Structure formats: C-alpha cells, structure tokens
C-alpha cells in the first residue's frame, strides 16, 4: 500500500514546498537548458577561470559532504548546522554539496545567505582565494522550473574538475558531473572520457567523482527517485572503472547506500533535509586511504 501511495503522490514529492508549482510540461519536454547546454556554458566558465589546484599544505585533509538539503525560506537548520561544523573544523578541509540544495523556486536567496559566510568559496574562482572551499553539483530541484540561470549566477558551473596538492605533490582528483536530469549527455560523457584518459596517467592518489543522481537503485523503499537510463548506468560505471575512479559520491534518493561494482565504491548519502528521517552528513578523511564517517544531525 505504501508503494502505491508513493506512486500516486510521486509528482507532489518532486515539488514539495509551498513555493512549488507543479510544472507538468517538464515531464514531456525540457523546460530550461538541457544538460548539453549547461555543460557548454560550464566549460566556457571553466576555461575563463583556468585549472583549479587546491593547496592543502598537508597530505591529509578532511572533506565535509552533505546532500539533498532541500532548503526553503522557512527551514534550513540542518544545512546551517552542517556549515557551522564545517567552518569550525580544523584545516585543511573542504566541503561538497551533492545537489538539491533548494527545494523549489524562490529559495536561492535563502541558500545564498546560508552558504555565503566569511571565508567560504562557493565557486571556482573563489576557491583558490578563500580558506573554506565549498563545491556543489546541481540536483533536479536546483535546475527545474527554469532555475539554471539562477544556479549559474551563484555557482557558475555544473561540470568541472579540480585537484588537491601538497606543494608540488599531486594528491587527489575530484570530478563533478552534472546529472540533474538523470542524464549526463553526450558532450559531458566525451569530456569525462577524455579527462579520465589524461588524468588517470598523472599519478593521483585517489580519483573521486561526485554527482547528484545515484547510479544504482538498490533500495526498494526509495521508489520515488528516478535514475539514469539503464544503458547510461552500464556505460558510466564501466568508464569510471576503466580509469581507476575509486569512489562515486551521490545523493538524490535520501537513503544511505554503499556498493562496490567493478572496483568502484558507490556511496549514496542520507539527505540533509530538515523534515527527513535519518538525516546525516559524511566526513571523509583523505590520506593514503580514505576513511569516512557519518554524523546524524541533532534532533529538536
């Protein structure tokens, strides 16, 4: 019965705030820029900024990771808490948000005020100038209802890579993929393949891909979240495996999961959304190995 309720209210679940308007047209045709267009615009920005190499001054550092905060103007206490924990943590560090920052339209000003704290860098150009870099990938809630231009104004790019270094020593490579509509598109796929072909030969310690939409639908209870087409799942997982990607971090389904397939570990994180059950965020301790830990958000 629960599954049937999921089915019936599926449309409501994808647009579930008081600000949302159910845009049924979006189910049949793109209502804003498609992934190929967003990718082209992102590459134009990336080219204007140049490559991003983060100096960590150590071989070891911490990454704070959260996803699916779905903030509205009324509620964003978990994201506030996450940011407070991140800002209070000792250096070196950085943070990732895996998409669905906001719940629906009209909430970007609020998201901006939560994220833009002193020292926090929310885009590529700022990340080499400010001490607290925060990298974000778009989720479906972030771009539908024609919100890509607002996202782009704030965060500039949806597909990019950066690496971390300790002096002249290369540490880890991070690749952000735009999967906001459950598809990474032909242009981004070609870029990813080319990037991995080149970068996998440069001796990085770890290669990590982060994106919003999860590759596998492991947990049957999460019936309301959509995925990639199967062909795209097959191809993407094989590509990531071929070039030695170690981890894929994603969100979207609001339930924690971990699976290893073709040598790549796929971690899906719990949501950060205030009203969600089982909210948590993750910290990853980067060193010769990667150890990760989950932290529950405080209950009211």
């Amino acid at each position: 019965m629960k599954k049937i309720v999921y089915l019936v209210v599926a449309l409501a679940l994808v647009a579930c705030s008081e600000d949302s308007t159910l845009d049924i047209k979006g189910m049949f045709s793109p209502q804003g820029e498609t992934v190929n267009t967003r990718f082209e615009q992102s590459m134009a920005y990336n080219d204007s900024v140049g490559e991003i190499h983060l100096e960590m001054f150590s071989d070891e550092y911490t990454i704070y990771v959260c996803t699916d905060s779905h903030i509205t103007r009324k509620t964003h206490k978990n994201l506030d808490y996450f940011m407070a924990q991140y800002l209070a943590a000792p250096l070196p560090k950085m943070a990732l948000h895996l998409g669905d920052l906001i719940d629906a339209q009209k909430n970007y000003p609020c998201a901006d005020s939560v994220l833009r704290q002193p020292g926090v860098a929310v885009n590529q150009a700022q990340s080499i100038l400010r001490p607290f870099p925060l990298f974000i990938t778009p989720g479906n809630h972030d771009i539908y209802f024609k919100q890509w231009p607002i996202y782009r104004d704030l965060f500039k790019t949806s597909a990019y890579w950066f690496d971390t270094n300790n002096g002249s020593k290369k540490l880890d490579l991070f690749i952000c993929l735009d999967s906001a509509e459950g598809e990474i598109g032909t242009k981004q796929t070609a870029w990813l393949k080319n990037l991995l072909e080149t970068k996998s030969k440069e001796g990085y310690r770890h290669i990590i891909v982060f994106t919003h939409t999860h590759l596998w639908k492991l947990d049957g209870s999460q019936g309301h979240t959509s995925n990639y087409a199967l062909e795209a799942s097959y191809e993407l997982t094989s590509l990531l495996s071929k070039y030695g990607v170690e981890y894929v971090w994603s969100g979207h389904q609001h339930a924690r999961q971990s699976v290893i397939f073709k040598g790549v570990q796929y971690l899906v994180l719990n949501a950060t959304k205030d009203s969600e059950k089982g909210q948590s965020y993750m910290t990853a301790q980067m060193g010769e190995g990667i150890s990760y830990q989950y932290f529950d958000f405080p209950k009211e």
Partner: protein
Amino acid sequence: MKKHLALFCALVLALPMLAAVHQPGFGDRKYSVTGMLEYSYNTTWGHHGNMDIQALMPINPHFEMEAKVQLSTANVYTGVVQLRPKFQVPVGELFVETDVLYKAVARNRLGDMTAALGVGYRMDYVSVTLGLFCRVIDNWDRSVHTDETYVVEPFNLLYRLEVFCRPQNNPWNLSFMFSNVDDYQMERMWQPLFMVGAWYDVADHWRLNFGVQCKPTGMFHLDATFYGATFRTGFTYKF
C-alpha cells in the same frame, strides 16, 4: 526463498486449471515465428542496429510460452523466456506474465538478469499489465578475492498499458503503448517507454509488423529530454 519458489510454481501451474472451460478468443493464438530488424539510437550507444527473433508457442489454450533473442551491433545480446498462463473471463482474458530476461552487455563486460511476475487483463481494445521485477547486475570480471558483489535492485514496478484501434484478432491494427518494459528491456519504473505498433496480415500465414519506440529521460526529474528511439519492422509466420 524455497517458499517463494514453491508459491510461484503453484501459481503458474494452478491458473490454467482454473480456466476449465476454453472459450474462443485470445487463447486461439497459433505457433509463430517472428523476425524483425531494428534501427536504434540512444545518446549512450549512438546509432546501432538490432536483429530480433521471436517464437510463440501456445502449448495449450491456457498456457503459452515465448522465447526471444535480440542481437545488437552495439555488442549487446538479449535473451528472454516468457511463460504466460491465461484464462478466459466473461469479458476478456486474465493472464499471468512471468518473464526472465538476460542481457549480456558485452561492450561493458557485465550481465543484467531480470525476473518479473505480473498480472494482466486484456479486452479487445485494451491490455493492462502490472507486476514487479527484480534485477541483478553482475560484473563479468569480478574477482572472488574482493569485497565486490553483484548489484541487486530488488524492487521495480512493471507496468504496461496498450490501447488498440481495432480488436486484437483483426487482420490489421494500430496500437499505442505506455510501459517501462518492452520485448528486450525492463527499465526502472521511472523510465517509461512510449511505443506505437502496427500489424497487417498480408496473407494467411504472414503478418507484417511495424513499431516505433521513444525513450525519454528525466521525466520524473520534471525536465524530460530525448534519450533514444527505435524503429522496427519485420514479418511473422503463423503455422
């Protein structure tokens, strides 16, 4: 697991017995062989062609079996076995759809195995199926010495709604289908397929078939884009 298997077998064997009295209609399908050629495109595999061979075996009026094979130039090979117990009701026909589909994705060195169980009802102009399926994806290169296991997607909804312009035993027809499964794929529940099919009986034993399928992506991200399309044509020989 054994209990589930026993229950499943009992269901498959019992349903034909329930239909004690055979009535003419959908149960009169004949042994047939179908050959189809497909042109297909999707944004992942690009342009490719497929060859399909299907055999329908109506073993008795209450039980039929289908075997299907698809060979694709995308280096993907699919085999399907369907067992379909069925029985007439005062209006239309009830059937149980039991499918096992294996897709050998040689280009990515992995196998995708799906098993489905559904219940369907069809009348002259409409056919509806609802069910569940489970998917197991296995890496062909998996070493037993690692933590890696196969990927199990335990719950997926199977749905199929097909509407016909003419009664289904008409010598020609045009149909429109909305489903997440077709003859050679079982997509995740939020990845629907839209299909238009047509047939024309050109001679006593020969039927000409056409089909077009469109596969969007991102529909339930409320940002749908085109993902792929397939055009197919071929003949069925009815014995």
